[in-house]
């Protein structure tokens, strides 16, 4: 981990890795979409609408996975002052917010034909909505400072506070929901899902993960380049002044 901490070395290996990641993402997402739309059978109850699942479920997984990535990078940044961890945490936040939004929107579009409404105050939906606001709070905080390092440090603390709070919020929302409405409507075809549906789902999930990795590497690289550019500009203006 520490050997890879050097930004120059990171630029080197990530530049080599990036095209492979991008190609794998394109293949997996293409294959997954084809399987999901044409090969997987329609559900006996939900009909064709079940195909929304192949976007919705991986997005939901990614929503929490990216928050975990963010929290772990923040911890690493706070403990070891790892220069890349700061950038990784900061750059993954908008991606996580994006996945959460995709999850919410696709869930709402799925909810309309299935439950007859765009939104239900179901425990799961509510906790995803709260997660979305945690992302937004983090993004707002890291961008609220004039010096980027200050924003990174503050953001790292907030990400960890959020990570401690997420289980509490999740638990309390579950508690609240069971008080208000007895049975949850949200049930993903039961615990057993047919293999013909599971495979496309897993391929899509892997595709989403690689998509995140590709975008994260791309964003980290451009953040590093932007920092270098800023340093060069300052150097240039100083030498001009001198």
């Amino acid at each position, binding site marked *: 981990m520490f050997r890879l901490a050097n930004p120059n070395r990171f630029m080197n290996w990530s530049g080599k890795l990036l095209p492979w990641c991008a190609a794998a993402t394109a293949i997996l997402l293409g294959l997954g979409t084809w399987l999901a739309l044409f090969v997987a059978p329609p559900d006996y109850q939900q009909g064709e609408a079940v195909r929304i699942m192949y976007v919705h479920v991986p997005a939901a997984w990614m929503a929490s996975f990216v928050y975990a990535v963010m929290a772990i990078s923040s911890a690493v940044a706070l403990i070891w002052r790892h220069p890349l961890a700061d950038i990784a945490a900061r750059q993954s936040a908008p991606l996580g917010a994006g996945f959460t939004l995709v999850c919410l929107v696709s869930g709402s579009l799925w909810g309309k034909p299935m439950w007859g409404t765009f939104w239900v105050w179901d425990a799961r939906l509510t906790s995803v909505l709260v997660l979305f606001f*945690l992302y937004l709070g983090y993004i707002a905080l890291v961008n*609220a400072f004039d010096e980027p390092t200050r924003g990174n440090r*503050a953001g790292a*603390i907030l990400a960890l506070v959020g990570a401690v709070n997420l289980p*509490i919020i999740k638990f309390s929302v579950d508690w*609240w929901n069971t008080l208000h409405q007895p049975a949850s409507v949200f049930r993903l075809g039961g615990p057993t899902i047919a293999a013909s549906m599971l495979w496309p789902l897993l391929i899509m999930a892997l595709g989403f993960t690689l998509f995140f990795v590709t975008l994260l590497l791309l964003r980290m690289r451009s953040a590093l380049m932007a920092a270098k550019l800023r340093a060069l500009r300052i150097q240039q203006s100083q030498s001009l002044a001198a």
Partner: protein
Amino acid sequence: MSKFSLLVARDLRLALRQGGDAAMVIGFFVLTVILFPFGVGPEPQLLQRIAPGIIWVTALLAALLSLERLFQADYEDGSLEALVLLPLPLEAQVLAKCLAHWLVTGLPLTLVAPLLGLLLHLDLAGYPALVLGMALGTPILSLLGAIGAALSLGARRGGVLLSLMVLPLYIPVLIFGVAAVEAESAGLAARPHLLLLAALLLAALALVPFAAAGALRQAVE
């Protein structure tokens, strides 16, 4: 007098002499609650049904409104940098500041809440749970808010930022606070909800000082 109580006394004195902090929070609380009957209509049944929710949500907002005062003045006039140098751990200072903040905001809110319950026809059985819940819940609001207030020091648009950061963290307090009152008025025990609030308070007391002190350190660095 120990350093801890000195710090509490200093903050209380500042809050009371500069005046109107507690009064402003209470004013906001009462006024906002009074807006609801205009918004939803004066039927007693409806008001009784939503009274716990109105009171708790408004208390949350009132607490949020006062958070900016927690560290902002000290940060602006530079006394925060002096406080960091005190031989009292920054974590303990955070607790002292939260205590002072709670005494001027959370405690008055707790005391006024039953009066507002009266205005909203709150079920008679719900009052003890409301007051106890507020007494346990408002310190959590001050503590969690301290993290947000410390993090947003020196940030642009601090106020809006603060609400975006802190309100999602307040959701558990809101849920258990309202659930306690509703359980009592439905003839169930409020005890589990109050115990959960107490657990949240203890966890916040144990963990928040470290996060908030970390945030303060990076703010004065």
